[in-house]
């Protein structure tokens, strides 16, 4: 038993040392996919227009993935990110319809996102429930509220005509760089700094790695987790607003399935489902791989229907490969 655990220790040590190497590998995979899709799409894939679309898609998914990864490192899940994101979008679209300044509506949406995150977090920690179930419930519930409010009818949001500043602030371009990518990169850097170099990050790793130890060391584990939930909620609502601005309208299905894509990206990027292990860089690369795969298949004429089959295979393969390497190193 002891030998086994110290063997495991060694390989986790190696894994940790290789974590940058591992991130380089994931990056290599996405570059490899770029090259592959360049040929299979007969060059269309690497056109400026497609790269622009992919950058926006990576940024929207990535903004949620970095939050989800942080939360997973703290040992919890959030399945409600898609619904929260749609709710944020709906809040902005509705308040805008009522004549409110969209920037103010954005602030309300972000606060609502944090509040929805806080609800997930508080229910999870106070009743000691698995967050998987709690957020499954809120995912369905918020989506239900969206249907009740909209009756399934799309809500227009033509903010670009009345408030171009708002449009440019969220989804415009700075030179050739789409603004969503700037939001994504800046947010990722901030979260990375917090996780690696701030006391809060130390608490997040501690709480996810061993909750009882963290508690014995005087860390407020409940508060740490609730803050992570709130961050995810805020990021999700932000992405929802970004998307409704870009698409110029809200529909009741907006953001559905993004919760699973976010978890998939975090896992591909090396976040452990059991908590305590993961990086923001890995999460960003996971988002990149998933997005490149989707658009690459579409541009290659293979079609969106195949995308999910391939993605599913990749997710399971990543987990199997990880397990295989762990066992190899153990023996």
């Amino acid at each position: 038993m002891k030998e086994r655990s110290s063997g495991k220790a060694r390989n986790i040590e190696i894994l940790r040392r290789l974590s940058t190497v591992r991130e380089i590998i994931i990056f290599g995979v996405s570059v490899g996919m770029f090259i592959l899709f360049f040929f299979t799409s007969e060059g269309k894939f690497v056109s400026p227009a497609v790269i622009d679309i992919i950058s926006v898609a990576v940024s929207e998914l990535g903004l949620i993935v970095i939050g989800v990864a942080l939360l997973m490192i703290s040992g919890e899940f959030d399945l409600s990110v898609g619904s929260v994101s749609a709710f944020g979008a709906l809040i902005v679209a509705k308040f805008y319809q009522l004549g409110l300044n969209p920037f103010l509506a954005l602030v309300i949406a972000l606060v609502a996102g944090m509040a929805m995150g806080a609800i997930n977090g508080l229910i999870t920690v106070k009743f000691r429930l698995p967050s998987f179930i709690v957020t499954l419930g809120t995912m369905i519930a918020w989506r239900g509220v969206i249907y009740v409010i909209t009756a399934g009818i799309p809500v227009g949001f033509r903010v670009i005509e009345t408030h171009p500043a708002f449009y440019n602030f969220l989804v415009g371009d700075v030179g050739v760089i789409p603004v969503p990518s700037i939001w994504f990169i800046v947010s990722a850097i901030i979260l990375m700094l917090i996780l690696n170099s701030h006391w809060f990050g130390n608490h997040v790793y501690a709480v996810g790695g061993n909750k009882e130890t963290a508690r014995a060391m005087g860390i407020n584990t409940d508060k740490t987790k609730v803050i992570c939930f709130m961050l995810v909620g805020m990021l999700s609502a932000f992405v929802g607003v970004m998307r409704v601005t870009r698409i110029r309208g809200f529909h009741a299905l907006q953001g559905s399935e993004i919760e699973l894509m976010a978890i998939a990206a975090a896992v591909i990027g090396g976040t452990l489902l059991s908590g305590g292990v993961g990086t923001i860089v890995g999460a960003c690369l996971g988002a990149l791989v998933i997005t490149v795969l989707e658009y690459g298949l579409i541009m290659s004429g293979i079609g969106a229907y195949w995308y999910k089959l391939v993605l599913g295979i990749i997710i399971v393969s990543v987990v199997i490969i990880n397990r295989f390497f762990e066992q190899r190193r153990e023996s």
Partner: protein
Amino acid sequence: MKKLPLMEAKNIHKWYGKVHAVNGVSFIVNRGEIIGLIGDNGAGKSTLIKVLSGYHRPNEGEIFIEGEKVKINSPSDARALGIETVYQEQALVDSMSLARNFYMGREPVNRAGFLNKQKMNECIKILHRIGLFIKSPDLLVRSLSGGEKQGVAIGRAMYFKAKLVLLDEPTRALSVKEVRTVLDFVKEFKEANISVIFITHNIQHVYGIADRFLILKNGEAVKDIEKDATSVEELTEALMGDRNA
């Protein structure tokens, strides 16, 4: 002038539902004293420790630190009072580095809350002082041996100037050699005038280093005696005796 004890626990009671886990235990801990808290499984040792470390609140009873009555409602309260607990398997987070573990919950930070990593790396030197040589502060705790982990937790308690350290079965599941290493670490506390409550069910492990023994049975303190006034045989008798009664 009579010296006040470092800590005094008076008539501590703790029930779990209908189970009376700790039944009116009173004892004192003097400065720099090592107390062997001995008892079989289910004798109430862990519950008593969890009361002192803020994990559980007692149903009844009072705790005094240096003569002042205190309320310990959480582990952070206990830490603020200078009571540090070293749990047997919960002392460190395996998936984190040595430096991150050492300063967990008390990270040295700048004004914006960012970690002072240079200072955190000094934990290696601090551990050298108690005879624990670990190569790198970035080493994952998972790769340390059981004895080394105890050493890190003990070094941490000393560094943060604990007044009273509660060691929860520090020698359980360790090899003979490692037990000796851990006992050496515990002696360092005494030299630093830090009091220790050493919880164990193994009299042999604690006999050599303890100054006084407190034996718990069925939630009650059945013996509280100085080492000079007793022997291993007598303690064993107190621990095992009246089994059939």
